[in-house]
């Protein structure tokens, strides 16, 4: 069956190559049947790759350790859902996931454009299949997911325990969907430039695809931040790690595009800029994919190469060279029809927004690739840390938030001072009120950037609130509906505008959360004995008792031994919450000879973070049991020597099954001893305000994106068109 899997990959590659040829031939000779065959190749690719995915996943589910991928990343003790996810924890499996998602989304895109952009689609198809060919070539020749072990082990290494959490099930597919989706606007941009057709139809379609990519990538980034916060033991959600940055950069560029494309639509300006943004965002998405798997940069995610660095660099170089060539040779098509009327207009605000977003991207790019840059310039590789990133991104982000409140309220082409006075009065007042509150009522005055951010966020919320209120009022004047209905129908009639406003609201809420939680966090790292308590901010946390489990770990991840604690949190004497942090110990990934107990618990250890969230604050706790007291002597020992000592009770002459049984009994004894007489444990305790606002803000952004991308009902479109048609026809008659 593995050989069948290989063959499936070969068929996929052949389909890609055929499709490229067919589409290009059909385009050159004006033959629709060849173009259709090319389009159908995309659908075929999706079917073929789905079969490949199924074959591989079945191997994982069935624990078929003859597959190298299964033996390296899964095991009989890995729970079922995580066995499925283990497929994409391996390099070759993740490549297959990437190209499978590419084929699915490409099929959707090709289907949705089956009757439009007929000049452009053949070239777009070739580009998409080109990406497919690249990845399937890697899968066929360099890194096959169907590789076989030379000798089949009885059990696999198991899914890395750090990955055994629900985020692993959804974050990679979401992130990859974001990355792969970016190839669609790229393909259509390349196609449009080749046939020199950059018009309203192209804008409409590209904008939709760019918005979808933007949404997927945004969700992927947010899920990654959440994962970092919930699962990793450092209590933060963003570390300016290269791989985090790699996903953020294309997202920033596509945000810029989504704004500046509106200027192109209305005024025929910025065509070269927009084409460059689309091409750039997609190239950055490929750069991001490359960064994770090339080991070129030191990162928490970085995995050692495997020889894929060179092909990816070649692909990126081709994309950059091709984009530059196309933009330069097609610049007459991209000439601006108008220019900026006034610096005090929505166009100017959007331009500034673009400049800042691109600037942010440049800062992050520079900081991320700095090790390579400094290596090239000075000979030593050097890194810049989060403080450097913060120094530049914080002011830029502040201006961006402020702009997101100005944009909705300012007019196109040219705003007048009188209008400005009328429109900005309320938002400025709100910001001013916040400033006063910051130094009197709300205790945030100690950090000036935080105060500025809160004021900007208030400005945004007030200006958007004003927009919604005025819009509803205007709607009611025309249709005399009840306010909630008026609001809904107003949003329905203008999804892009109000969807955008909702996104801005979400961003403001998100930044409030980020500012508050980074500035006013209280953290304690200390060791506590049972019965001891400590203060974290306004909260008192008391170590009540120790807990332990053998095999039946509360987080259902297949841990062999779990040692944990119960913490009681109070504030001013009143009970607030109970936190149960734990440390999970997993079987070793490679068998240590003759040490059965060690095998069972000396694999990777994972912290199960205890978290109590509310709108006001998060209480976060992680535990690292310093060691365990030996049942016999009461002496405290670190884990490594513990397992070595535990093993002395199990003789090598005992038969294997008996050894395993004895090992579990020994573990049970250790667990009991831990519960009865726990040594002090090392705790990391955090109380952080408004963290939930970050996730809430993200949800609001998602809601806004969905509103913007939702197509207006066709019937309504027809009705409106008829009405306007009549009116314009009237004028036609007059003229």
């Amino acid at each position, binding site marked *: 069956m593995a050989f069948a899997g290989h063959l499936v990959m070969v068929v996929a590659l052949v389909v890609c190559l055929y499709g490229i040829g067919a589409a290009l031939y059909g385009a050159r000779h004006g033959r629709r049947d060849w173009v*259709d065959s090319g389009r159908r190749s995309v659908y075929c690719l999706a079917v073929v790759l789905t*079969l490949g995915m199924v074959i591989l996943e079945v191997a994982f589910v069935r624990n078929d350790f003859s597959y190298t991928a299964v033996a390296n990343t899964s095991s009989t003790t890995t729970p079922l859902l995580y066995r499925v996810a283990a497929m994409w924890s391996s390099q070759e499996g993740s490549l297959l996931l990437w190209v499978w998602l590419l084929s699915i989304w490409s099929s959707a895109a090709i289907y949705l454009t089956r009757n439009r952009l007929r000049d452009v689609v053949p070239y777009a198809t070739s580009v998409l299949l080109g990406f497919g060919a690249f990845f399937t070539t890697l899968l066929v020749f360099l890194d096959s997911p169907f590789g076989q072990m030379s000798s089949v082990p009885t059990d696999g290494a198991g899914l890395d325990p750090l990955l055994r959490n629900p985020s692993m099930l959804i974050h990679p597919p979401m992130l990859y969907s974001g990355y792969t989706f970016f190839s669609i606007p790229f393909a259509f941009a390349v196609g449009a430039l080749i046939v020199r057709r950059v018009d309203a139809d192209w804008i409409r379609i590209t904008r939709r695809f760019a918005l979808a990519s933007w949404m997927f990538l945004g969700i992927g980034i947010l899920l990654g931040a959440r994962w970092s916060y919930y699962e990793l033991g450092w209590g933060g959600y963003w570390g300016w790690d290269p791989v985090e940055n790699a996903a953020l950069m294309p997202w920033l560029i596509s945000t810029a595009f989504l704004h500046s494309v509106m200027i192109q639509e209305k005024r025929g300006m910025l065509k070269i800029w927009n084409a460059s943004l689309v091409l750039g965002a997609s190239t950055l998405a490929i750069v991001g994919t490359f960064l994770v798997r090339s080991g070129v940069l030191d990162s928490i995610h970085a995995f050692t190469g495997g020889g894929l660095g060179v092909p990816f660099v070649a692909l990126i170089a081709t994309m950059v060279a091709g984009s530059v060539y196309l933009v330069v040779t097609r610049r007459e098509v991209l000439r601006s029809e108008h220019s900026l009327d006034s610096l005090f207009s929505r166009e100017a605000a959007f331009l500034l927004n673009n400049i800042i977003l691109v600037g942010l991207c440049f800062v992050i790019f520079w900081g991320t690739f700095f090790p390579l840059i400094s290596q090239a310039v000075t000979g030593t590789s050097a890194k810049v840390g989060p403080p450097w990133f913060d120094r530049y991104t914080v002011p830029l982000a502040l201006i961006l938030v402020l702009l997101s409140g100005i944009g909705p309220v300012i007019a196109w082409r040219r705003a007048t001072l009188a209008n400005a006075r009328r429109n900005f009065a309320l938002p400025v007042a709100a910001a001013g009120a916040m400033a006063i509150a910051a130094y009197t009522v709300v205790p945030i005055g100690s950090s000036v950037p935080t105060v500025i951010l809160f004021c900007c966020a208030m400005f945004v919320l007030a200006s958007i609130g004003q927009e919604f209120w005025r819009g509803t009022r205007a709607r009611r004047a025309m249709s005399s509906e009840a306010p909630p209905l008026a609001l809904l129908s107003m949003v329905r009639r203008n999804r892009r505008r109000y969807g955008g406003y909702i996104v801005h609201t979400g961003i403001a809420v998100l930044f409030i959360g980020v500012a508050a939680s980074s500035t006013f966090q209280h953290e304690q790292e200390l060791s506590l004995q049972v019965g001891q308590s400590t203060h974290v901010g306004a909260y008192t946390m008391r170590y009540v008792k120790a807990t332990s489990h053998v095999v039946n770990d509360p987080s259902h991840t297949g841990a062999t031994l779990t040692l944990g604690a119960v913490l009681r949190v109070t504030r001013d004497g009143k009970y607030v919450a109970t936190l149960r942090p734990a440390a999970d110990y997993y079987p070793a990934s490679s068998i240590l000879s003759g040490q059965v107990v060690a095998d069972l618990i000396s694999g990777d250890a994972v912290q199960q973070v205890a978290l109590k969230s509310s709108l006001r604050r998060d209480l976060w706790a992680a535990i690292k049991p310093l060691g365990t007291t030996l049942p016999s002597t009461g002496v405290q020992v670190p884990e490594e020597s513990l397992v070595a000592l535990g093993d002395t009770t199990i003789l090598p002459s005992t038969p294997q099954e008996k050894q395993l049984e004895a090992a579990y009994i020994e573990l049970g004894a250790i667990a009991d001893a831990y519960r009865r007489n726990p040594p002090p444990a090392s705790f990391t305790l955090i109380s952080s305000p408004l963290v939930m606002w970050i996730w809430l803000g993200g949800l609001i952004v998602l809601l806004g994106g969905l509103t913007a991308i939702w197509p207006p009902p066709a019937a309504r479109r027809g009705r409106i068109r008829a009405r306007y048609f009549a009116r314009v026809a009237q004028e*036609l008659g007059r003229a």
Partner: protein
Amino acid sequence: MTAALAALLIAALVTFVGWALSGPFRAGTREPQESDERRALESAKEAKYAEIRDNETDYRTGKLSDADFRALDRQLRAEAVEILRAIDLLEGRAAGAPR
């Protein structure tokens, strides 16, 4: 057993792919590629209508003065008329008879 299943799967896959992609090799329908001209104009018209509506919303929510709104509205409607004329011209050409 699995070998037989695998062989069957591959055979089925190749057959399916061959059938799906063999369109141009069979009794080919030699239809010419349709042009995007009409579609492009339709999209331009939709975009222009959206702009007219947007302008009105801006006016009703107080971002534009009366004079500014009316001037812009007139201009946008004139541009819409141009697009409609271009569509008519295209349809006239396609119908093969001048309107």
